């Protein structure tokens, strides 16, 4: 075992997850591949969404993979950063909007 939880080389082993459950693994990869195909959204738009979500999920593997994917698709770093801000805005907005719960509770409890 490596003495750290995340190892960049493990990303290359992602495909190996089918080894311990072939059917489910293959189903997942079929689904995954299909999702990223050109559709009503272009593959490039999907790649940017994936990049933003990779950040909100804070998954180092996904950030690694989708940064490279975006570069391959000719996405500029300004566009990539804007996508990350969209993720960050939703993430912080989602935190902040819960403030209304706190306010409701305070209003209910206080005289």
């Amino acid at each position, binding site marked *: 075992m490596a003495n750290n939880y995340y190892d960049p080389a493990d990303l290359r082993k992602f495909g190996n997850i089918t080894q311990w459950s072939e059917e489910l693994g293959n189903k997942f990869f079929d689904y995954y591949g299909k999702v990223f195909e050109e559709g009503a959204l272009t593959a*490039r738009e999907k790649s940017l969404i994936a990049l933003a979500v990779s950040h909100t999920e804070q998954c180092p593997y996904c950030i690694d993979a989708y940064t490279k994917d975006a570069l391959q698709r*000719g996405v500029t770093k300004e566009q990539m950063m804007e996508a990350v801000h969209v993720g960050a805005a939703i993430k912080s907005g989602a935190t902040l909007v819960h403030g209304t719960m706190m306010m409701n509770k305070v209003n209910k409890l206080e005289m």
Partner: protein
Amino acid sequence: MTKLKQQSLHKRENQLANPNRQLEILNGGIFENGELPTFAKIITQTNQFPLRPKKLEILQINVGYMCNQVCEHCHVDAGPDRKEIMTWETMQKCLEIIKNTGAHTLDLTGGAPEMNPNFRRFVEKASQAGVKDFIVRSNLTIIRANKKYHDLPQFFKKYNVHVVSSMPHWTRGKTDKQRGEGVFDMSITALQQLNAVGYGMPGSTLKLDLVYNPNGAYLPGDQASMEKEFKSALKADFNIKFHNLFAITNLPISRFLDYLIASENYEDYMYQLVEAYNPKAVKNVMCSNTISISWDGYLYDCDFNQMLGLKVASKVTHINQYNESILNNRDIVISQHCYGCTAGAGSSCQGEVTT
């Protein structure tokens, strides 16, 4: 991120100026210890070893390594300081070959081929030899580099040359980072000049194609969607038109290899290439229909092998003994750089090789 270099590896006496050192790296490390399969091993799996040429279609002539630019990724290690230039005498021998070849395409490259002092004389004569498609690989900025080159668009038009030009991105930042300060603006002006004489217009027989290659340690995206992006951006921002975009993979040799090693991307890049290996691309790799001739008249399977000093494995290795039927009966010399030609949809000087 690395700073733009102003000099070739040769001038800097960098160890990678030596092709043998490059081959040592490509054959060693992760390929020597079996972590990744060698190119020979992987093509053997689909019975494609040894790689053999099909019918000769393209004669690619490198008229010299001198260039007005010093692009970071250059597989030629070209630059203003390179003195290897094809002489008129060698050009005359090439003209004989062009007259008698079975190939339908002539492809002039460099460096900046226009910097060869006999370039125009050579183009004029070669254009009379009856090849169907006559390509000149022009880096665009050369047209703006010096007054004596400003009329190149008219010159190309006069001889019905098919212009293939490199354009790393449709934005200034990405272009200048790869090729040097000011390259984007100069390239845009040059493209507008080519458009003005009729190059690249829809339906025009004056062909203008662009070459895109990634600006770093990643593979090119899908050629068709990159072409769409390039077309709409260049049209919207500068009213520029062109015909096709060729997406080309950077091969891990010369200055790009130097960059990969210096930026600690080498192993990762080789993994990317091997993971993207597409056995279907093998039968259409560039060396299957091309012969590459160097400035000093030697023969190679491709421009990449030329830069690695890997001459054709044939009795005939120089234009002095040129013989197409003997040449066509050869095994192609390969090493791990060949993975660059078979990644994804494959890559050649004509872009993707699978449809």
